[in-house]
Structure formats: C-alpha cells, structure tokens
C-alpha cells in the first residue's frame, strides 16, 4: 500500500505513528485510577500536549542537526518568538489560535533567516556558539530591557483591558480553534480506568502528524539527500557543484519554523509566554532530546522528547507520602532504607535520575533510544527466524 507519495514502508510507518498518536490518551493511562501505580499514568491533557509539542520541536531540530550535523545551541529563541507572537495575537485580535500560529511561523522563519544567515558563515563549534550567543542575547533582553514587549519575568499574558478586536460577544475566553476550545475534554470511564480525550491534545497531535509527514517527505527528498551529504562530506559536495550554504540555511529556517510552531502551540494550549522559554537550558533540552532519542532518525527525537518530559513531570511529583504507601508492606528497616534510597532519585532529586539515564543511554545505546528499539526488534526477529529456519535478510533502506 502506498500513499501520499510515500513508499510502502514509509506508509506503514506513518500509519503506525498516526495510530499511536490518536490512541495516546489510552496508551499512557495503563494503570487504573486510585491504584498505587496511578502516579505513573501520563495520560492527562497537559503532559500529552507537551509530548506532541516537544515532539514537533525535536522533529524540527532533527532536520537541522540530524541531517546536516550543524548543532544549534540557540533553537529556544524561535520557541520563545513563536509563543510571544501567539500571545500578542490574543491580545490584539482574540483567542482564535490560527492568526497567532501563522504569525509565529512567519516571524520565526524571518528570525531564523537572520540568525542562520550570520551563524552559518561558520561551522562546527563556532556555529554552535554563534547560535547560543544570539539566543542568550534574546533571552536576556526579553527578560529585562524588552519588558514592554515581553512582560519580562512575569511572562506575556492577556489582560482584560487588551483590545482583542475580533472578540465577539459569545467568543470563548480561552484559546480555541474556530470555536473548538482547547482545554475542553471528554472523559471515558472503563472499569477502573479513566481516559481523557482533550481537544488541545488532538489539535497538537494533528499538527504533529502533519509536520511529521512533512519531515518524512524532507528525509526522502533530494533536498534531504543533500542535507545528509553536507553532514558526511561538505568538501565533496562543494566539488560536486553544489552550494552547501543555501541548503544549510534552508534547513536552518525550516527547523526554526518548526520551533516557532512548537512555541506557538505551547501558547495555544496555555496563553502565556515566558522569557525562560528562550534560555540556553531550553535550547540544550532539545539537543538532549534529539541525541537521546537518536539524531538523524525519524522517530528518535520524538522518543527523546517524550522521555525527558515524562521524567520532568512524573518523577518530580513523587513525594514521601507516596513512597510510604508503596513500601508500607515491607518491614520497617527495609522500608526506611528504600525510602532513603529513593530520595536520591525522585521528588526533589528527579534531575539525578535524568542525568543517570542520559549517561546510561549514551554509554549502552550509542544510537540513542531508537537503537534500543532496533536491538529489541532484532533480537525478536532473530529468535523467530531461528525457530522458522528462515533467513533474516535486512533490507537496505531506500
């Protein structure tokens, strides 16, 4: 089966991604409500939205870093610009997200064009530091001097006395897509389980599927081929009559637009834009997501984004009360020991767990989480083929 100009393999792949995205609210809710493990459920709207949004951010970043090898340390600047654009549109026009998202993509493209044009005059670490410098400048200014535009530390938000010229009598008073209000949900209760189907999540998910499809097309296109060629040997590319600069610039702008879109969606789910969205730690986060998942692979960045966001939002919430509940059935001494041990890893120490996992993944899975998946798949396939006595020939990628 082939669809939308994709090969059969890619069509299957895309369909799997679409399916998984649509059933995420069910998949991420594996434990019944009220059970001790319910803490590990991630199927609530905010986190699912974040998975989709950071997935988009990482997919876009991967187009630059994964394909061309240019490591930008300033992509958070575009995220911030996207968010500010959307909130400004709320303030000026009204709560429909469409004008804001369009503006965000355009503004971040222009911003990326400017920063990319300058930064791409250098390569390697010099490029990284140039992008970092631009983003940090944006952050520092947004936090302080540009407060009239960004509302500084507090974050840009909508006030009741903002013009909002397109707001009608009955318009929703929170972000919506032509009347579909983002923070509305439908709930499904089956047995002890509850599933939340949130408008905002599905909006993000559909956008994410669209941009994932675009990135799939870019990966398979001659343009994508050129970008991969830049990563492996730029000298040869130039001596083959190809000008690498416009290719890298195009990749930079496209990934900047993805970041702007992600920022726009953040503000579409939650009408606030803070300056720290532009800080180097935010730029670093997307780098980590991409490498952790597997740079240059299609699924890797999305996995990486999900991994980091899961730890940030789930592990940080585990507190002593829960630990006591979990370990209550154990003898006192062991219980105290386990709780003491857990203090290193959960609650206020969730960073430590994340740091350790970064190290473990990169040490044991050089290709990132995707490699982990491939290894499992291979092991399963080998076992099966042994059983069948059939040959397991890996097909080269087209």
């Amino acid at each position, binding site marked *: 089966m082939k669809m939308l100009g994709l090969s059969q393999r890619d069509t299957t792949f895309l369909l799997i991604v679409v399916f998984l995205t649509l059933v995420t609210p069910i998949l991420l809710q594996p434990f019944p409500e009220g059970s001790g493990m319910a803490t590990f459920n991630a199927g609530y709207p905010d986190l699912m939205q974040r998975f989709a949004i950071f997935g988009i951010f990482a997919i876009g970043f991967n187009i630059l870093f994964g394909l061309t090898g240019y490591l930008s340390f300033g992509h958070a600047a575009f995220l911030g610009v996207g968010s500010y654009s959307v909130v400004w549109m709320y303030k000026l026009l009204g709560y429909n997200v469409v004008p804001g998202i369009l503006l965000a993509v355009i503004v971040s493209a222009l911003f990326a064009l400017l920063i990319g044009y300058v930064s791409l005059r250098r390569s390697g670490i*010099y490029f990284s530091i140039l992008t970092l410098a631009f983003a940090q400048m944006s952050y520092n200014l947004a936090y302080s001097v540009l407060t009239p535009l960004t509302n500084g530390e507090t974050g840009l938000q909508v006030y009741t006395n903002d013009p909002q010229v397109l707001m009608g009598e009955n318009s929703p008073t929170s972000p919506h897509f032509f009347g579909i209000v983002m923070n509305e949900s439908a709930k499904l209760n089956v047995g002890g389980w509850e599933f939340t189907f949130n408008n905002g999540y599905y909006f993000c998910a559909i956008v994410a599927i669209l941009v994932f499809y675009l990135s799939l097309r870019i990966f398979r296109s001659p343009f994508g081929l050129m970008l991969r060629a830049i990563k492996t040997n730029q000298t040869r590319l130039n001596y083959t009559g190809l000008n690498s600069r416009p290719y890298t610039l195009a990749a930079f702008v496209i990934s900047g637009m993805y970041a702007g879109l992600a920022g726009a969606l953040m503000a579409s789910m939650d009408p606030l834009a803070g300056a720290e969205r532009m800080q180097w730690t935010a730029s*670093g986060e997307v780098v980590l997501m991409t490498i952790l998942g597997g740079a240059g692979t299609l699924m890797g960045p999305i996995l990486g984004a999900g991994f980091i966001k899961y730890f940030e939002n789930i592990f940080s919430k585990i507190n002593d009360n829960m630990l006591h509940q979990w370990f209550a059935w154990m003898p006192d001494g062991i219980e105290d020991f386990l709780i003491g041990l857990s203090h290193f890893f959960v609650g206020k120490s969730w960073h430590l767990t994340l*740091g350790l996992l970064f190290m473990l993944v990169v040490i044991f899975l050089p290709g990132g989480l995707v490699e982990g998946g491939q290894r499992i798949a291979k092991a399963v396939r080998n076992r099966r083929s042994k059983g069948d006595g059939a040959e397991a020939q890996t097909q080269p990628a087209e």
Partner: protein
Amino acid sequence: MDAIILQILNGLDKGSAYALIALGLTLIFGTLGVVNFAHGALFMIGAFVAVTLQRIFNLSFEQIDPTKKDFLGNPLKVEVPYVEAWFGADVGDWLIDWSVPLAIIFAIPVMLLVGFVMERGLIKHFYKRPHADQILVTFGLAIVLQELIKYFFGANPIQTGAPDAFSGSMDFGVLLGFDPNVIIYPYWRLVYFLFAAIVIGAVFSFLQFTTFGMVVRAGMADRETVGLLGINIDKRFTLMFGLAAAVAGMAGVMYTPILAPNYHMGMDFLVLSFVVVVVGGMGSLPGAVAAGFLLGVLQSFASMNEIKSLIPGIDQVIIYLVAIIILLTRPRGLMGRAGVMEE
C-alpha cells in the same frame, strides 16, 4: 580615571575566573578532543572541597550552656569545634579561619583523583564517539555531580569566607598616586588575580619546559603522529585531564570567598566558559586566557553607568555580542587553529 582603573581591576578579576576555567576546558578540548560539559561541575566540586574542609574544621561536639536558651526554650547546646579542643583555641581558630587557602592543598589531590576517575572510567570511552554523544554523557555527569552535592550540602549558597587577614580591602589607589580612599580594592580579589596569574604561568611553563608538556603539545597538534612515534599518549592524556580538573578545582576553591558556593554554580559558569574558549579559538591555550581577560574587562566596562545609560541592557549581552563580532571577523576566534572542531 579612577572609575576606569577600578573597572579594569574588576575585569581582570572576572577574567581570572573565566581564564582559569577556560584554560582547563581548552586543555581537554585540545588534547583529548572532548567537549566536556562537566567542566563547570569540576569548578563547583573545587569550591565544595573548600566548603567541606571548613565543615571538617568546624566539626563540633555539643556543650550545654545553661545561661542561654534555644528557639524552643530548652537550654542551649553550644558547639565546640574539635580542632579547638585538640589544638587549643588559637590554632583551632586559625585553622578555621584559613580553611579556604588550606583547601588548595587538599583540592589538588582530590581534583586529580576526580579527573583520573572521570577520564579512565568514562571520558576515555568517548574519544572516538561523535561530539554529540560526548555532550550528552558529560552533561548527564554534570547533572549527577551537582545533584549529589545538592543532596549533601543543600541548595542554599554557603558562605565560605577568606581568612580575616585578607577579608578587608586595601587602598590600591595610593600605590598609583591617587588620593586615599578613591580606589579601594578587596585584598582577596588581588590575591585571586595573583593566584590566577601564577596558575596560568605554571601551566604554560609546564607545557613549555617539560618533556611531558612537549609531548602533550605535540599531541594537541597531531595526535596520530605522536601515537606513531610509540609514545604512550593515553597515559599522558589521563594526567592531562587530571591537570585540567585540578586547575578548575583550584579556581573553584579560591573563588569561594568572592561567590558563596552553591550546587548550580557549575552550570552558571558552563555556558560562559564555552563562549570564552571558542572566542579564544579552539585548541589555543593563550587564546583561552586572552579571551577570558578580554571578556572580563569588556563586561566590567559595559557595566559602567555611563555606558549602560547609552545602551540599556548592554551589560547583559556584551559577552555574547563580543563573541559574535569576534567570530564573524576572525573565523577561528582569537587564536584558533584550523580544523579543530570545525565539523
């Protein structure tokens, strides 16, 4: 004029810290080709060696002082440090007072050890891996190290003072022929600057005048060739990593009286030290030092009211602005070599 001299002094002081961190970072870049995101953490560990020593000297037993009450109204327990009980109040007090300079003695072996363990246990396996992997693993390590420090020392800044003899300030202006009380400068900052100059000088002499240094410099220039000569470069690189860690650690120890150490100080310095290294030029030790001082001084000047009133917010972005200008006019920073980390 006096304002400018003061800002130059401030800049040199800031620059000393930048230069010391950047020096170690460049040694690791240049010799091992590793992007070490855990370098800031080494600086932080150094600072906490000082904190730990101070804590050890302050280790106390409790004596009940019936004349005073604690916050719950019970008789107050007064802590008496063991060192005072053992060596007498004078020596004990002196030890506590001088714990920061004394920490240098402890920091060197501790940091060398930390460096060796890091290099042998982890970094070694990443020489041939892509820079992206190095970033991920060292960043992970940095997080782990700082969280461990947070676990044991808490998140608040911990005041770790200079010895009383150095905690005041001197009238520096008089030395230069100014009126008294015009240029006042803290003793410890002058000590820090001298210390930085000595460490930088020592590292350069070490690389310049010893065989070990010669091999390492050759290794920085062309690792393969040196390897072909049958020289065991690996062992030397391990030592080099230890040395870089020790430089960062000592910088951290001496910085504690200026900046009360906290667990995230490494991350705060990390980005800045990368900017310094790259502005200096990849693989160039003099470049790193020069860039450290240059950015320090420029940052100080940008903080002057006269300049801030002309360009609001310039002090917040000056480092990045200068970095952009330098990298655009000089493709490899101040003194970088071609082909180092350009892919």
